[in-house]
Each structure stands twice: as structure tokens, then as C-alpha cells.
């Protein structure tokens, strides 16, 4: 329940960041325009990666519920790897943008873009850390209560991060300013 509340609260956080971006995305005094730098095929692949990580997360949850801890460790690892791939892709993307002249402080579009996607990236990173920690806990057989619960909760968080990306991908990348 605490998780659902937290996610409800996060809706307002990301809502605020997305609104800021939407308001400011066209306000470009200098530097490249989004259409000049976005690499849609690349981002599509990372979006796909993140989407699939949601699937593997579901598999991790169901296998934990079956007490199939080997499987669940496997799926947790895969999920974490997919997440890490996504973050890696984002780091690559940021670097590429930066080299094309879009610094964090270049203009309002860039500031709000980096803040929004950066916040999302941090959430994914935190998710990856939690997944890894969870894997460690399960493999060391260190119990912190009902495993299925815990995996499920982290799963909820993970899916939430995914749905935020679903929105960001459409609003930020696919719909041009």
C-alpha cells in the first residue's frame, strides 16, 4: 500500500516535470532544435529494452511467487541488465546531444529535457540498484521477510518507471515541438 501511495505521489512529480518540459520545449533561443538531434531509431530501441524489462520483471515476480528462486534470480538479473542497458543508452544519448551543442544550460528546452529524462534515468538507476540488492539478498539467503512481497513491490516501482517512459517517449520524442 505504501508503494501505491508513493507511486501516486510520483505521478505528481513526473507530471510537474513533464508539464515544465511541455511548456518550455519550444523555447529555444540558441543551440540545436530537438528534431535535429533526436535519434528516434536509437531511442526506440532503448524504449523497447525498457518495455521488455517490464516483462522480465513480471516473470521474476511470478517465479518468486512459485518459490522458484533460481528462476527469480535469473529474471532479476536480466531485468537489471536491461535497465542498465537503458541507462547506458541514455548516457550515450546525453553525450551525443552534448557534443552536438546541447548543454544542460543551453536553453530552456535543453534544461527541461535533461531534467525530465535525467530524473527518469535516476529512477531507473535506483531501480537497478534495488534489483541487484534484491538478487544479492535472495542468493545469500538473507531474509527480509516475505520475498514474493518484496519482489512484487520493487516490480511495481519498476513498472511505474516504465510507464513514465511510455509517456516521455511519446510526448518528448515522437511528437515534435
Amino acid at each position, binding site marked *: 500500500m505504501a508503494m501505491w501511495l508513493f507511486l501516486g505521489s510520483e505521478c505528481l512529480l513526473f507530471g510537474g516535470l513533464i508539464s515544465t518540459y511541455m511548456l518550455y520545449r519550444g523555447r529555444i533561443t540558441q543551440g540545436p532544435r530537438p528534431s535535429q538531434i533526436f535519434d528516434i531509431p536509437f531511442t526506440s530501441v532503448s524504449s523497447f529494452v525498457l518495455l521488455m524489462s517490464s516483462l522480465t*520483471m513480471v516473470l521474476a515476480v*511470478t517465479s518468486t511467487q512459485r518459490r522458484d528462486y533460481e528462476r527469480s534470480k535469473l529474471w532479476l538479473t536480466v531485468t537489471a541488465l536491461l535497465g542498465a542497458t537503458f541507462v547506458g543508452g541514455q548516457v550515450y544519448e546525453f553525450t551525443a546531444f552534448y557534443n552536438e551543442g546541447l548543454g544542460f544550460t543551453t536553453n530552456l528546452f535543453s534544461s527541461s529535457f535533461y531534467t525530465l529524462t535525467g530524473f527518469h534515468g535516476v529512477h531507473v538507476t535506483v531501480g537497478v540498484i534495488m534489483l541487484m540488492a534484491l538478487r544479492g539478498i535472495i542468493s545469500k539467503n538473507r531474509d527480509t521477510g516475505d520475498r514474493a512481497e518484496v519482489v512484487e513491490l520493487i516490480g511495481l516501482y519498476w*513498472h511505474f518507471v516504465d510507464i513514465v517512459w511510455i509517456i516521455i517517449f511519446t510526448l518528448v520524442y515522437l511528437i515534435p515541438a
Partner: protein
Amino acid sequence: MDATTTATDTVQQGDSHEHGLSDAMAIKIALILAAMTALEVSTYYVDFGAFFLPVLIILMIVKFFTVVSYFMHLKFEHQMFKLLFYTGLGLALFVYFVALATFKFFN
């Protein structure tokens, strides 16, 4: 907490496993989501004309709720969980739409 000792309308946790979704089902849903994503990306290559915006937005919304309802199995959860999450979501939509409207964002 023991169910017998709690108040009648206390929200119970963790009774959702029974109607969790099966792996096969999950994969099916993931495939559908993937297909939708493919369709979204295709708007980048193919000109959809006037449908462009609505298609993207509708796809986005459908994907959003698919993940929430099935992967996060909110669909099967206690009423209270839905209330908590959808209140947040609804409020977010409301306040930010209104705020953007005052910036003449939708004109």
C-alpha cells in the same frame, strides 16, 4: 497482521497472488505492447497526416493502462489501491492540465 483481529474494512495486503497473471499471459501482453510501440515508432517514418497526434496519444494511453492494469495487476487489486494510485494520477492530470491551460498551451 492476522485477518481475524483486524477491523472489517481494513485493507489486506498480499492477497493478490491468487489472481496474478500467468507467464504466458504476460508474454502475450508484452507482445501486444511491443506491437503498439512499433506502430508508434512507425509514425516517425510514415506520414499519418491528421491522425498523427491522436494515434500517438491514444496508443500512449492504452499502453499506460495496460501496464498498470496487468503488469502491475492493479486491475485485480483491492479497491483502496486503485483509489490511492488513481487519485494521484487524476490529480496530476487535473492540476497540470489546468495550469498549462492558463499558459494558453492548448490554443
